[in-house]
């Protein structure tokens, strides 16, 4: 059983419009799965369904083969979003330690974990006392990542984590993320609209359109054996970026 998370006929409608058609997907343990597709294709809806920010209209989510209890599940996952996910009234340290303090974990243990995470994410210790507004966009995303990793989650979820960063910072963070995922053997589900990012980080790329999965596989699979016209169009549209 290699799948950590399994989606069975999961679906969601907003009024008349189907945001997600009944969908099946396995998220492989220790791998990075990337959801990609044009705006409105249902990739973010899929992610929000998994973390319970949206309730599905049909189907179910299995975690380690079992149905999930959402509160317990949330504490075994980490969640990083594009911008604004940090709490502005807490320092970087306060943000990262929020949950461990809430759960009453020993301070010393948490402090040691925080030091490790700073090294892992290349975040300078000296900046831990700063508030989100005093940090750069890249630094904020590193704090977000530390917060997500703090409780050693089994699953890491990313919703366009690098979308708002400038290209240089973005490239640096992509490199660091890849290294971190590899080192931790982390199971990751990442949403992006950038094929280069998907190709660079993803072991399994899931291309979506109009609320359904069109094709999944490695970037080579998608390029060499497109399932239909849409897949080749989507790949070619971003080709210049990919193979420049």
């Amino acid at each position, binding site marked *: 059983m290699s799948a950590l998370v399994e989606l069975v006929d999961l679906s969601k409608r907003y009024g008349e419009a189907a945001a997600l058609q009944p969908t099946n997907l396995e998220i492989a343990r220790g791998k990075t799965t990337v959801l990609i597709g044009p705006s409105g294709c249902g990739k973010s809806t899929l992610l929000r369904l998994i973390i319970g*920010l949206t309730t599905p209209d049909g189907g179910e989510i299995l975690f380690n083969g079992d149905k999930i209890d959402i509160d317990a599940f949330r*504490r075994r996952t980490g969640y990083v*979003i594009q911008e604004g*996910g940090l709490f502005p*009234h807490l320092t970087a340290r306060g943000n990262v330690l929020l949950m461990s303090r809430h759960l009453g974990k020993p301070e010393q243990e948490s402090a040691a974990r925080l030091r490790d995470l700073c090294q892992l994410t290349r975040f300078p210790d000296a900046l831990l006392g700063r508030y989100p507004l005093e940090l750069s966009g890249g630094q904020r995303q590193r704090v977000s990542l530390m*917060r997500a990793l703090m409780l050693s989650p089994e699953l890491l979820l990313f919703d366009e984590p690098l979308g708002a960063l400038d290209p240089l910072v973005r490239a640096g963070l992509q490199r660091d993320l890849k290294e971190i995922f590899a080192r931790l053997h982390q199971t990751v589900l990442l949403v992006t609209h950038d094929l280069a990012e998907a190709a660079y980080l993803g072991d399994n790329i899931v291309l979506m359109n109009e609320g359904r999965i069109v094709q999944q596989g490695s970037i080579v699979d998608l390029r060499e054996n497109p399932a239909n016209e849409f897949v080749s169009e989507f790949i070619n549209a971003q080709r210049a970026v990919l193979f420049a």
Partner: protein
Amino acid sequence: MKAFALLLLLASSAFAQPPVRVGSKKFTESYVLGEIAKRTLIEANIPAEHRQGMGGTIIVWQALRGGQIDAYPEYTGTIAQEILKRSDSLGFEEMANELEKVGIGMTEPLGFNNTYALVMRRDRAQSLGIRTISDLRYHDLKIGLTHEFLDRQDGWQPLARTYRLHPRNVIGIDHALGYAALKSGEIDVKDAYSTDAKISELDLVVLNDDENFFPRYDAVFLFRFEMPAQAIAALHKLEGTIDEQKMIRLNAEAERTKDYARAASLYFGDNARSTTTESLTHKITRWTIRHLQLAGVSLLLAIIVGIPLGIFASRGGAVGQLILGFAGIVQTIPSLALLALLVPLPYFGISARTAITALFLYGLLPIVRNTATGLQDIAQPIRDSATALGLEPGARLRKIYLPIASRSILGGIKTSAVINIGTATLAALIGAGGLGEPILSGLNLNDHATILQGAIPAAILALLVQWSFDLLDRILIPKGLRL
């Protein structure tokens, strides 16, 4: 709701009253008679206090009926027309019998008839050749009347009918301000009481009531039969002891010195300054402390109730709309009208409790609205993050949402506090005290110095409150939100 009741209890026990409470209406003569009664009681070794200028007839009468006061000076004409609502002329005995049915006693007349009258400046009346009310028919004059006289059953409407007057210019104006307007010529005719000190002071003429329209207004004391027998006996001793000349002199003294206790002491024949006179600093301190009690207790209640309501309202839906709608509607009721609406209710009446409740209702909207919008303005990514982290709903609110909304919530509390400091001056209208007391009596006496004794401390209080909240902002709003 338990906390609410407890606070009301605390508030009312803070204002616990000694045994005999004498009330008075909002004009000089009533103040003076109230002081005379208070001193008479004290000289008979009965503890007494005087609640000055509680309002118009209906408010003071309701206070007497409701037991918030034990006695107050009233006039027979008012009793027949306004209290018993009788349009036929009622004999003194019948009147006493009617009052007895509702547990209220009446002394014999005190000795003077303070009837309503219409007055003009002597020079103006002479130049127009006006001597009687009938003469008004032939001139189109500007008439300024007190609001009470405009509405009374024995007031302006039937008077105009009796005399067939159809003036085009009739305005409502406060009694004391009306005299100023008469003096400056902005109005030509106004209503007055025949013992008003202003009549001789401003050299006014009383127009002859040639159709005998005005009923007699013999001054009496009304009292509750439940009052101690010695207190009733003491009030009876005042019967027949004040004639019209004496009352005019007492009224003139009160208006000259702005000191009702001193005017009352003339009645007792001593010219020495009354021993009960407080120093100005002491009075201002007392008013200020009461003012802060009224505003403070009501603000505390508004915070305790307003923040949870704001949290509910922030979730939107029908209940949220209902809460915001209710708080908004309360805000649109003029504060004076809100007080008047609460006074007849059983639990309220003329008391600090009523003032605090009105102020509490007023303070609610800014807190509810700011709490609701502060919470609604929190960005979706922050909400998603808090939820996805696995915080329970209560912890999300406590640790994330409320701190982020703290600036907006504190802003609402600050607005409420400043509104309450200002509006609390109206509490004096229903005898709840505070800095409105000197403002009200100053307005009544047309005396700017007395008005300022209340207005200046009230303005300073409002500024201090503003500053202390600015300071509080720095302590209570997390630093990360102030960058």
